[in-house]
Every structure is written in C-alpha cells, then in structure tokens.
C-alpha cells in the first residue's frame, strides 16, 4: 500500500479498523457516517469479518458489545441522533469493561438539525453522554490519514484499557477526500486485550493486581464460565449491593483512565515556541486554523496552534505546559463553546481566552479566524 490513493475520511476509518484487527461492524445508516457502514459491508467479509445492519443504533452498540465480549474486535459508526441513541449501551461497555470503538461523525444538531452539515456539537456528549460517572477516551482526527491512524489507535486504547473509545470525527473530515499513502498494516503496532485463561470457572474475572487498573479479560463462550453485568459488581463479576465494593469498582474504572492519562493523551503543537497567541481547536477545524496561522505569521504575528488529538480526557496539563508563555488563547470550534469550558478551566488568570464558534452548519473559514484574532468578530457570530 505504498501508492497514494484518493480516499474519503469515512473510508479511511474502515481501512484503519481492519488494519487494527476489527472483524465485526453493526450499525444503522445515518448521514454523514453512512459510508463507514457501506464500506464495512464491502470490506469486512473480504477479510472474513462480519457486517450487519441492525434495526437501530441501540441494537448496533449492543451487538458490537456482544461480539467483542465473544472475542472479536468490533465497531460501529453513527452521527448526531444515532449517537444519542447509543449512549446507554456505551455506559454498559464502560461498566462491563468491553472494548469497542464508536465512531461519531458529528453533524449539526440539536435533534435532526442540519443533517448533512458539519458540527462539533457532540464534544460534551462524547464525555457526558451516558448517565453516571464513567471513563471516556475520545480521539478526533483532522485529516484522512489521521482518521486512519486514530482508528487504529482507538482500537489499541480500547483493547488496552478495556473500555469503549469514541472516534469523534466531524463531517469536514468524514466526507473529505484526500490523497493518502496508508502505512503498511504489518508495520503498525496493534494491541489486543490481555487475556486470562488460568483461573477456572467463576473466579474473580474482574480481579486486578495491586497497582494495576485493567483486569485481564476472560474469553466469553470459550471454556470459562463467568458473568457479565451492567450492575455494580464485585471482582467475581456478580452484582453487589455493598456500597464500599461498588464505589471502589467504579473508582477503579475512572482511575484506569485518569492515572494513565499521559499514555492516552496526544496533542499537536505548531509554532508555539515563540507564540503569544495560541489557536486551540480540534478535528477538522484545524484546517482553517493552519491557513489562518500562516496568514498571520506572514504579517509577523506570533501565532501558533494547540490541538488536542485526544479530546477526552482533556489535555489540561499539556495545554498548561505548551501554552505557558502564551498570552492569549483563541478557542475555535464548530459549536457554541464546549471545549472552551475546558480551556477556560486550564488557562491561568493572566491568559485571555477568546472564542470563535459556529452553530449554523457552515464551516469556519481562515479569514474568520484572522478577524477574531484582530478582534473584529463577535465571540459567536452565528446567532
């Protein structure tokens, strides 16, 4: 695969998933993610995998979790309303610690909204969509090649930490075609879940050694009988009403991500060394930001870029470190100010935080970012 090919972001996700070892997709058609289902239907059986179009998105995540529990790396893809429908079972995956990847190609909402238009309005939903305190990993690509690479990484993190990982795409990247040279799949690092086979039936299938956070997974339906539940459970996997045990179990789920944040978090910085202003954005918004930074740099303005590639957990520490000398942070996102809240929490008292947002389904242009830099634009101009 050394030859460059023209590929759509949604297509790249499927190739990344296959390279990561995924062999099961269950989904329901919804714009702008549908190409991921279509391409999965075409490609998965070619590699011996299975595609199924389910009756709705609730069933899609359920089937994905079932298939993953049974030992097959699995994923689904959706957009807007479908992502809302998936939330309950995403929480189940987090609670029962079943790895899977959920791709959300965001579109403008709320409700049916602007069904085919770009948005980044699911940023907070990706974090807090399912009820209760739960662990979340979410990654957001800005190019077709990165869609491929982050899909591989989403599977790796999901397997490593036994938790659903959200690939938070946007329509800009999902529907864009670019020339890409995909890496040789044999050269990729592929993680698979740690398995435990040795301890017989019904023995502590959620046991975690001291100082570790992720239990090894027992193969379901392959020789060892155990129980999986979304109820608060003890290390045997059976429900418990003991508050101390339940609390400790849920705390471990949260710690699993928090204590490994440095391993999970990736960020991108561009020209930050001497920057007085940092544009902070994620996903496809980076593309306008890069042109804006080039235009501003050409005029001698010291502007750089800070981009969370891992959008959840939010790279608070990394933002503080990399933007320590920056006087001004301009958050640019296709929503009404969601990541803005995280940046405001991370910024120091002396740093000014400005915002450019968009909720009308159009794409923020480089000129608009320049204008915001110059202070000509309202905070949110798409009222």
């Amino acid at each position, binding site marked *: 695969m050394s030859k*460059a*090919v*023209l590929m759509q972001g949604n297509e790249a996700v499927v190739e990344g998933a296959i390279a990561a070892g995924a062999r099961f997709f269950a989904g329901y058609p919804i*714009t*702008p993610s549908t190409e991921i289902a279509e391409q999965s239907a075409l490609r998965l059986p070619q590699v011996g995998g299975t595609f199924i179009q389910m009756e709705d998105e609730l069933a899609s995540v359920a089937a994905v979790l079932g298939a993953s529990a049974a030992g097959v790396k699995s994923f689904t893809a959706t957009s807007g309303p479908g992502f809302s429908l998936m939330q309950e079972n995403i929480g189940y995956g987090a609670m029962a610690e079943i790895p899977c990847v959920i791709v959300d190609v965001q579109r403008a909402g709320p409700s049916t909204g602007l*069904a*085919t*238009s770009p948005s980044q309005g699911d940023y907070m939903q990706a974090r807090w969509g399912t009820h209760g305190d739960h662990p979340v990993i979410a990654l957001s690509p800005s190019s077709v090649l990165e869609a491929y690479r982050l899909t591989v990484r989403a599977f790796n993190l999901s397997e490593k930490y036994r938790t659903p990982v959200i690939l938070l795409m946007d329509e*800009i990247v999902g*529907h*864009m*075609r*670019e*020339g890409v040279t995909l890496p040789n799949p044999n050269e990729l690092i592929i993680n698979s879940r740690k398995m435990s086979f040795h301890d017989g039936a019904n023995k502590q299938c959620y046991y975690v050694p001291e100082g570790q956070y992720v239990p090894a997974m027992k193969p379901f339906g392959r020789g060892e009988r155990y129980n999986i539940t979304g109820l608060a459970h003890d290390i045997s996997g059976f429900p418990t009403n003991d508050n101390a045990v339940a609390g400790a179990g849920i705390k471990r789920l949260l710690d699993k991500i928090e204590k490994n944040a440095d391993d999970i978090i990736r960020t991108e910085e561009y020209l930050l060394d001497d920057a007085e202003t940092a544009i902070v954005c994620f996903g*496809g918004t*980076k*593309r*306008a*930001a*890069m*042109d804006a930074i*080039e235009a501003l740099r050409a005029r001698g303005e010291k502007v750089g870029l800070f981009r969370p590639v891992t959008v959840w957990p939010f790279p608070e520490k990394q933002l503080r470190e990399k933007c320590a000398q920056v006087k001004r942070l301009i958050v640019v996102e296709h929503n009404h100010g969601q990541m803005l809240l995280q940046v405001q929490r991370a910024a120091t008292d002396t740093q000014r935080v400005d915002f450019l947002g968009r909720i009308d389904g159009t*794409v923020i*242009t*480089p*000129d608009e970012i320049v204008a915001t830099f110059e202070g000509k634009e309202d905070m949110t101009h798409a009222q």
Partner: protein
Amino acid sequence: MKNRFEMRFTGSGGQGVILASVIFAEAAVVKGLHAVQSQAYGPEARGGSSKAECIISRDTIWFSKVQQNDFLLALTQNALDKYAPELAEDGVVMIDESLSAPAFLDSERVVSVPILRCARETVGKTITANIVAVGAINELFGLFDEETLREAVSRHIPAGTEDLNFRALSAGKALIGSELRDRYLVEREN
C-alpha cells in the same frame, strides 16, 4: 497550472458532477500533487442542485473548501445563477451551450460548450455528460496528460465501462478548439 487551483462542479442531482470532481482529485493524486475533494450532501444532492469541489495544489492543502473559485462547471441554469457570483475575479466558468451566462460575467471568462448534446449524440449516452465535461475541462486548462486522466477515470467507474468512458473523455477533449485552449492553458503537464 497555478500553484493552487480551486474548482467547483455544479449541476442537478444525477448529472455526476461529484464524480467529475473526484476524477480531478484522483488525477492530481496520481501525479503526486495535493488534492482535497468535498461535496454538498443531502436533499440537494438528490434531484435538486448538486455541488462538488476539488482543490489541487503543489503545497499542503489545509482549509478544504473553495475560497478563490478559479473554475466553475455549471450544467444547469440554477447552478450557474447560484454559483457564478462566487467566482474569483479571474475565474472561468464552463457552461453547457443550453445555458445563458449572467450579464455580469465578462464573455472572455465564459466557455460555452455543447456538453449535454455531445454526450447524447456523439457518445450516445446522456449519462456520460460528466465525463465529457472532464475531457473538456482538462483540455481547456491543460491539466493532466491523457494517461493520468484515464487512470483516474478507471479507478472510479464500473469495470467494463472503460471504452464508453474513454470515448466520452475524447469527445469532451475535441470540444475545445485550439483557440480556446491557447486562451486558458496555464501550463501543460508533461
């Protein structure tokens, strides 16, 4: 070719303007250039007006949408009226001969060619209009060599339709006379 060439392909749903944009992006990739293609989705892509974009550049392309529209293909009057005002100052529009160009466009910037008639009569299949247009556009600007363009087309058409589509490419090319070609040709690859 200019360092960065921003193209728009417009018409009604079903005319294949999206495929036309994909073929140019693919041809650019075949030649080792940078290319980004995108399109408008939704109801307007299902029978109403349809719009696709392709940016070709020697440098990395960040922002993926057309800002300086260098070239516009319009296959319907609606599409022409809607997108002509967004053309860059020196932008060129190719229209089907059945359309009338808006008065504000300098006639030097309007290339009127019988795309639909050529597809119907010369090639014998109306459905090939988009490929006829690709042949004509490529010839007008001298964008890609024949082999590259055929490779790009081949990657996006059903197997077994190569002959038909290559005939459409040639028919489109033949619509552009030497006078037109010399006027717009910026640089010929190879």
